[in-house]
């Protein structure tokens, strides 16, 4: 645990780096060097313009509907993908033969860059939210699946033997041993899987949609509105930070029993 004053000075340094970056951007795009700025504002916009546009969009309310749609897609993708990953992960972990048979197909499917699925999903599910949800599901599913699989497989043998000696039957082992172990892996990969749900939603919107943050960025890019693109990215970043904060809260509650320092690394 860092002390209060070292945390304050860390925060100050972090803010300083941000301000420094913004200042450099501002200077490079506004101060003329030999007649014109080093970075052409047409292609690079200006930080103050981006902030002004973002402020206007929030206050004017133009952005809220798009935020809501992206949020809905993210939540649906996460819930459906996680549910599928948990069910299939448990099934495979308990049935060695099934896991062995499907192993190469799962690996192949996971190796596929999901972006190439976007056009197919757009054809199958239309340009509404479901094609984006589907894209997010293909990303979330594998993260949760691998974590559940690992969580079930990596139950400590002595904890398992102890639980059996205490008289647990198979159903009770599932509930008191396998499930908590698997869920601890799922929860510790929550940041990654929620992040990927969002990536699926935004990429899907970017490639073809009628609403959402990704759609706004694509629209702005289509009319060479670089300020709009940067503003969209800024809104997306704020959105991610807010969601991540909620995930951290959920994680702290769900993994209360865990020692602080260990967090399993998630697979993507």
């Amino acid at each position, binding site marked *: 645990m860092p002390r209060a004053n070292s945390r304050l000075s860390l925060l100050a340094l972090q803010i300083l780096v941000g301000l420094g970056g913004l200042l450099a951007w501002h200077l490079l795009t506004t101060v003329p060097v030999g007649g014109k700025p080093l970075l052409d504002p047409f292609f690079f916009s200006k930080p103050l313009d981006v902030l002004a546009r973002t402020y206007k969009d929030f206050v004017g309310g133009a952005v809220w509907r798009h935020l809501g749609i992206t949020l809905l897609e993210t939540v649906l993708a996460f819930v459906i993908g996680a549910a599928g990953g948990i069910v299939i992960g448990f099934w495979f972990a308990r049935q060695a033969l099934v896991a062995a048979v499907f192993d190469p197909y799962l690996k192949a499917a996971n190796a596929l860059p999901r972006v190439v699925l976007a056009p197919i999903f757009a054809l199958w599910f239309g340009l509404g939210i479901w094609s984006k949800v589907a894209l997010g599901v293909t990303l979330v599913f594998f993260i949760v699946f691998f974590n559940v699989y690992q969580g079930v497989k990596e139950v*400590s043998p*002595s*904890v398992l*033997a*102890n*639980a*059996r*000696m*205490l*008289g*647990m*039957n198979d159903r*009770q082992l599932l509930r*008191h*041993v396998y499930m*908590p*172990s698997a869920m*601890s892996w799922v929860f510790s990969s929550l940041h990654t899987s929620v992040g990927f749900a969002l990536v699926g939603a935004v990429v899907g919107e970017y490639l073809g949609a009628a609403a959402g943050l990704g759609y706004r960025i694509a629209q702005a890019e289509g009319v060479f509105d670089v300020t709009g693109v940067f503003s969209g990215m800024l809104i997306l970043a704020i959105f991610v930070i807010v969601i991540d904060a909620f995930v951290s809260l959920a994680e702290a509650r769900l993994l*209360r*029993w*865990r*020692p602080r320092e260990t967090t399993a690394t998630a697979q993507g």
Partner: protein
Amino acid sequence: MRVASVPMPNPEPPAQTALRLEGVSVAFPERSGQIFVAVDGVTLDVGDGEFVAIVGPTGCGKSTLLNIAAGLLRPSAGLCRVAGALVGGVNRQAGYLFQADALMPWKTAIENVAIGLEVRGMPRGQAREEAASWLARVGLSAFHERYPHQLSGGQRKRVGLAQVLILHPKLLLMDEPFGPLDAQTRAIMGALLLDLWSADRKAVMFVTHDLEEAIALADRVVIMSAGPRSTIIGDHTIPLPRPRDITESRHLPGFIETHKAIWQQLKHEVMKAYADAAG
């Protein structure tokens, strides 16, 4: 006769035997295709209410015997009876305190202690009450809501002890339970164990590599030879009176002589195991 290297025909085990191993052997196939015999022809009785300690060099298959008694492992040859009945599957009459941490890390101390009763169908509230009284008995009244990682090694062992004893097993199996603890904590845990054990004497099979601990705790100390093919090579009755104060045991008359007699036998096996490991 309690020791026999050759399995003998034994039609009716006596009724007062809590555990009887008859000519038990355990073999594993090795990767090279050869068969590794861990334990060879072990015959051992543990009487009702008897505290038997098993000592032997590392890797001599002491834990293997416990796993057989627990029903977690099937012997390749021989029989294992608990209270006269053959063990098939997990032995529901036995409680097992493992060497490694075996508490469920996602359950609090009290949840860990109560779970055995809960899975046997006792209502949660009642199981928790019972668990609270057991936590008090092991001196952890103030730690109900702690998770295992928030407890010290000794405290985790106390929770483990309560978790096992709350089910009133007829046979208590302990696999170097205090091995990872420091010397003082071990002595305290040993005293606690004797205290709880003397309240309702269960049969105990206690595996340890610490001879002093074995003598201080047990009624009998059984010596196993160095592996592979380890078997029982000695069986000593401990002449110390009960109740015992474990911290004072080593000053009692008879302790030194017993220790010397057992060590003479054990030393040979320990050296052998050491030589095998080194070279």
